[in-house]
């Protein structure tokens, strides 16, 4: 009886401690989630009461909206570009920073810095000026006689340039990789060296398998973020040129806040949610075959 009472007391205390988060979750996450689900079946312009239209919004999205298919394609391309590049850079830099050199903490801070400032509107505007035809990037390339490129004006490469802004913010993934690298037992590396393994062999056969949980975590988080990306493309190119960078987030924003079709935008947001959920589940399922946990 005493033990049962003790458990009961603990639960109540725990609930009170986390009540601010619970209230925030209910008001700012669960309520909007359920509200958008409801609105996705309505015609709603924010000002007048929503009018039920059943599955009309979803039907229009899949059969009458060319922008939807374009944005899906652009967003998938963006995810396939930005996520692998970001994780590769993050891992490479983490390996380089995983040394005991004087001043290494300074370099770790420098490489983390873009993650703090990178997502801001100011940096997006700066990106525009860096990559314009007479921008610094082309000026530097001109030194080695490379002709100027319209990094943001050419529909074929604008998406790549916009994705670089996301890749540049690799700091948070890098920090996680660094933590993972530090946890690899040095005995494993030493034993591999004694057995005659070279650096490449050690990297692919020891290091990578040991940090697969971190790779998996970063892959899931960065994929989710990439699908939802908005600020960079919105500020730098407004989805252009010719909708080459018209990410799903921008399309959703335009439908909701420019055209005031909140019901339609809600339907779009739920479709995105289901796509992200599907990809996340696929990644989790696949993790059974390539993620190695020590325990």
């Amino acid at each position, binding site marked *: 009886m005493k033990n049962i009472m003790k458990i009961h*007391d603990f639960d*109540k*205390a725990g609930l*009170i*401690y986390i*009540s*601010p988060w619970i209230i925030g979750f209910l008001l700012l996450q669960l309520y909007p989630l359920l509200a958008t689900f409801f609105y996705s079946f309505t015609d709603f*312009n*924010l*000002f*007048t009461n929503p009018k039920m239209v059943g599955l009309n919004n979803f039907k229009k999205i899949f059969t009458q909206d060319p922008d939807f298919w374009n944005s899906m394609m652009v967003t998938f391309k963006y995810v396939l570009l930005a996520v692998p590049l970001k994780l590769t850079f993050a891992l490479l830099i983490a390996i380089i920073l995983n040394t005991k050199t004087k001043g290494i903490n300074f370099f770790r801070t420098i490489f983390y810095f873009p993650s703090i400032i990178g997502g801001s509107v100011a940096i997006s505007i700066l990106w*525009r000026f860096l990559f*314009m*035809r*007479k921008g610094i990037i082309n000026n530097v390339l001109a030194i080695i006689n490379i002709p100027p490129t*319209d990094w*943001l*004006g*050419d*529909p074929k490469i604008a998406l790549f340039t916009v994705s670089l802004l996301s890749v540049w913010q690799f700091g948070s993934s890098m920090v996680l990789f660094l933590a993972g690298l530090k946890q690899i037992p040095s005995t494993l590396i030493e034993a591999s060296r004694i057995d005659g393994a070279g650096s490449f062999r050690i990297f692919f056969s020891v290091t990578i398998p040991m940090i697969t949980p971190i790779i998996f975590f970063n892959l899931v988080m960065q994929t989710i973020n990439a699908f939802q990306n908005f600020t960079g493309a919105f500020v*730098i*190119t*407004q989805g*252009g*040129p*010719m*909708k080459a960078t018209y990410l799903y987030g921008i399309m959703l924003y335009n439908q909701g*806040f*420019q*055209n*005031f079709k909140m019901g339609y935008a809600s339907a779009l947001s739920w479709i995105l949610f289901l796509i992200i959920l599907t990809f996340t589940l696929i990644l989790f399922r696949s993790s059974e075959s390539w993620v190695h946990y020590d325990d």
Partner: protein
Amino acid sequence: MLGRKKYLILLVIFLMCAAFSFAGGQKDQASQKTTLRFSWWGGEDRHNGTLAAIDLYEKTHPGITIEAEYSGWDGYYQKLVTQIAGGTAPDIMQMSSEWLEDISGKGDLLVNLGDRSDLDLSGFDEKFISTYCSIDGNILGVPTGIGGELLIFYKPVLKSAGIPLDTEFTWESIVDLGAKVHNQSSDRYMINASTSDLAYLLQKYIIQLSGGYIDGKNKKVLFSVNDATKAFEYFQTWFDNNIVQPLAVSTLFDGDPVENPDWINGNFGGLREWTSGINKVANGRPADDFILASIPVLDGAEDSGIKVYPSQVIVVNSKSNNIDAAIDFVNYFFNDEDAIIATQTIRGVPASSIARNILKENGLLDPMVEKATSVSMASMGKPFCSLQNNSEIKSILKDVIEEFGYGKLTAKKAAETLILRLESKLSEL
């Protein structure tokens, strides 16, 4: 007992956290002042002038504080309409007259200013107000300035290309002269225009050829494939003769051509702008450096398509808790001599004759803004139908011009695509 104490302590901590997070915003109740919120968009000179007028009002009305909420143009409309929908809109708002029909159609959201005896509208032209600021006979906004659009040319670029400064700028002469500007230096172009400005100009060309663009009431497109093809063929000559930068270069500054470094460095012969944006274009350069010219009009055109309408309108939120105070400020803003002198022509030549007279008497009517207004009024077109201002209708023309400018559509295909998409959207709306 220990358990109960723990709960009490936790509850107190939680309540304190809640109290701190909800604190604030109590100042007004405590001090019993009236606070009004006033939002507008603009450039630096508009912000400074408006803040000066607010400051003067607050000094003469000590019980009233006006919180200024100002920003640039980008995102202003989306933010404002979201605030209106969410019930958090400011008391006094600057809007475009083009938004009035849309917003008033969504409910009783704006005060009917025509009913207010405490607002003096005698200085405004009745027809101007009834055409642009009224919906169903209700005056929903007070026009700030007379806004028009025109071409502004930069003399140093024209001079160095050997172009006489008294040239009459027609659609044909722009192409001939533009070629000269680019031949003189490959960095130079006659007109600073990307997709949005090309859309404005091409729309005018279509209207001048056909007499109209769309019929909002009957949801019809008013121009033919032939008319649109001619328009696109004309603007093809702009790309072929380097009158404008390639879209791949200018697209980064679409909507804000004055931010293009080539404009700042004096590599453009001119651009299209609104009269209320003249000072932003001049950017400190002397007025003598510029030629103000009408957007060209084809011979025999029934309608020039050139917009002359209120630069902006000031509206009062019908959900405001301080409507009387808001109206009092609006009345002051438009009729008080000190306010008029503080704001001068930051929103174009004032639409109020009272304001224009005060500025003239004090020698404050910016001659450049005044001239720009009279130039654009001289070739004023008919009012646009409201559906022409619909965001989805506008974006159709922009998208087609972009595809055309990037060489994905021929002139004829662009014309057909434009009409097809407009008809499809009109049937939906």
